[in-house]
Every structure is written in C-alpha cells, then in structure tokens.
C-alpha cells in the first residue's frame, strides 16, 4: 500500500471523529485542531489498528501530534 492509499483510508476513518468537520491537512493536530480527548484517541487508534492490522503503542502515539505524522507512522508500521 502506498502513502496515498494509506492517507485515503485514514481520511475515511477520521470522518466520524471529526465532529466539527475541520478540513484535515498534514499539519492538523489531534489534540489542538481536532480537539480529541483521551477516549476519542483510544477509539480512533483502535479503528486504525483494526484497519491496518497493526499496533500503535502509547509510546509511539506520544510521538504523533499531527495528521501527517500519523500517516507516516502507519506507512512505517505497514512496511515493518
């Protein structure tokens, strides 16, 4: 799967969590722009993990602040 396809899939997954319909770009932050609280983060991460059959540990999540970083992390985890 290339980055564009992963990006497209994550965009689909983020939609139900993007309550205010914010337009999402690589530098959109989860805590700041999307206002994700810890429960939303857990559900969103679980959705991504299930879609790509990967684990994103909390240690890895701590490094992911914005959308672009998430797509990069999923690309990397997919490659592993």
């Amino acid at each position, binding site marked *: 799967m290339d980055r564009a396809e992963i990006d497209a899939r994550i965009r689909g997954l983020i939609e139900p969590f993007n309550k205010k319909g914010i337009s999402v770009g690589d530098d959109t932050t989860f805590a700041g722009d999307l206002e994700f609280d*810890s429960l939303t983060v*857990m*559900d969103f991460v679980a959705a991504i*993990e*299930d879609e790509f*059959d990967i*684990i994103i*540990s*909390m240690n*890895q999540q701590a490094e992911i602040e914005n959308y672009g970083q998430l797509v990069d992390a999923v690309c990397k985890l997919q490659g592993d």
Partner: protein
Amino acid sequence: MTDLFSKFDPLIQQREALLASGVEDPFNLVMEKVLSPTRAICNGRETILLGTYNYMGMTFDPDVIQAGKDALDNFGAGTTGSRVLNGTYQGHKECEEALKDFYGMDHAMVFSTGYQANLGIISTIAGKDDYIVLDIDSHASIWDGCSLGNAQIVPFKHNDIDAMGKRLRRIPEGAGKLVVLEGVYSMLGDIAPLKDMIAVARKYDAMVLVDEAHSMGFIGPNGRGVAEEQGVLDQVDFVIGTFSKSVGTVGGFCVSNHPKFEIMRLVCRPYVFTASLPPSVVATAATSIRKLMHGGAKRAHLWENSRTLHGGLKALGFELGTGEPQSAIIAVIMPDLERGAAMWEALLKEGLYVNLARPPATPANMTLLRCSLCAEHSAEQVQTILGMFERAGKAVGIV
C-alpha cells in the same frame, strides 16, 4: 521567571467556582473522631461512613488492635530502613507468611503501599522490548507503573475481550507480554470477565497480573478475589493487593508462584528504595489477614448489604454504574459535577459520607457518588442510608 504552577490554573479556577457556589469542599473533609468502622464525626456532624474501603470492618477488630499495640511495645514505632537493609522484622516475615497461606501461593512480597506494589512489579518485570497490554480503565498505580518502566504500552477498551485479543495477536513474535487486569474496577464497581480474558492471554503466551485490591476478603470461596471466584486463580502469575481496604490498615503486596519471584526483592526499586512498614502495621495486617480467612458470616452480610443498597437506590430512580451489584461498590451516576457536588453536600448534611469521584479518575468523564459498603453496616443503617438518598435526591432534583 515562568511560574511552574500556571499549568494548574484551569483546575484552580474550576475548584474556586465550585466552592463559590457555597458547597462544602468535597476534597477537604476532616474526620474529627472515628466511632466505629461505619460511624465518625465529620466536619462536626455524626456521619455514617459509606465511602471508605473498610469492606470487612477490620479497623476496630479487637484482636487486630491488640496485635498492633503489642508490636508497638515490643518492636517500636518504626523500622527506619528499607526491607533489604535493616527494615525486615519478624513481623514482616509473619505478614508474608499470612499472605502465602491466604492465597495458597509460594511467594509473597510486602510493599509499603498497594500503589508501590503496582509501581514496582509492573515497571520491573516488563522491560524495554516487552509489551504491557492493559485495560484502559486501570487504576492510576497501574498506569504509573507503566510510565516508570520502558515497555511498550498498549491499552484496550474496558473489559473488551476481543479488543484485548486483537492487540495480543499483533504483538511482534518473540516479544515478552504482560496482561494487566483488575478483579473489581473501583469506579463503577464492576468486575472483569477474568476467566475468558485470562484464557485469551494464555493463548497468546502472555503473563498475567491481576490487581485484586477491591475483592480481597469477600469475593471467591476463600476471599481470594475475582480470579478465585471464576476458577482461574491458578492461571494468574501475579496477584497485587493492598492492606488499605479489607485488611483495614496500610500496605501493599504481590503474591506469586513464579519460581524466580524472590529476585524481585533485589531489583524492584519501589521495594528497595523506601522504608518498610512499621512493626505495628504489619502486625495488624497479619492478624487481620488470618481472621479474613474465616470471615464467612461477615462476607454473607456484606453481600446482603450490597444487594439491598443497589436494589433500593435503583427503586428510588437513581442511575447506577452496574445493572446488578457485582461488588461492595455501588456507583451512583450524577448528571454533572455541579449537581454531583450538591448531592454530595446534601448527603453530608443528612449525615452520610460517600465518595465524590470526577474526571479524570472516572471512566467516560462521569461524575460519580461512590458508595462502598462494610460488613459492619447493619441492615437498619442501610435503610437509613436509603432514606437519606431519597431526601437528598429530591432536594437536589436528581430523582
């Protein structure tokens, strides 16, 4: 100079706003006198205690108190040292023997608190490339144990067997795995489906740690907890517990059948780098633990109290954390923090103390009035409590 305290401003403001509405400070209650396990003078009023973890009422047990007094006389007020240096007395060994007998396990290690037991065991056994898979609603001491160590932390949705299994399945081959569960989750008083969860953990070759802080002494045929109740205690590698609840004093422990368990005493920093419990505390704990082995009648009465309170509150129209009583904790769900605090205060004025719990300690941002029952609450007291809830609930407009 940047004031390092400015990060607390939102909390300071929230607290000030709450107190400005005139309610008594829910987090600043003083018990001037403790009359029994179930009654105290709080902020000047005689109050029924329904928010302690004194499930088995052992705090005033005459044998327990006598053991503490004798230890004070014979061994002094404190050990002034670590367990691994000058802080292991006869009493600490006797306390560990009592725990081994209570759980029927080969090893027992006593810590200064249950918080430190979780902190120490979790951070020490799960190393850098290991994975800890834990319930998202885990107690703060479990989360802090995860933070103190270097393992990869993977949470799953509360009590969700499937979500846990999926995460275990995806862990890279060869990595060490520790699954951390609780018997009773103390915010809502619900129990875990340990039998099924542990079967899944075993399938993926994970070691299993279960925190049984809120079940000791009254859940399971011998009061060993939810894992015993569900017939899977032999599948648990590490049981964490505390003396601060049913045992009625303070302290924490881990019991295990792991053949190499004793090495923990040398490598577990929250065990090594702190002073051991005072002789009087371990003496009261050991006496209490041995008495809890024979607490059948008290246990039955505690369950009866739990069922009566749960059924009564439900009939009054309160929303409760569990459909059926699953433990000695009954959580009453409040619409918001303001009305929760108002209800808490109305109950206190009626002469009833319950725990006000609010985010971030609670799941799903709930405000809860947590009621915890004691085997020493009489049937009449439980009826009195229900009357207090009815009057307070109507006054505040919750029922």
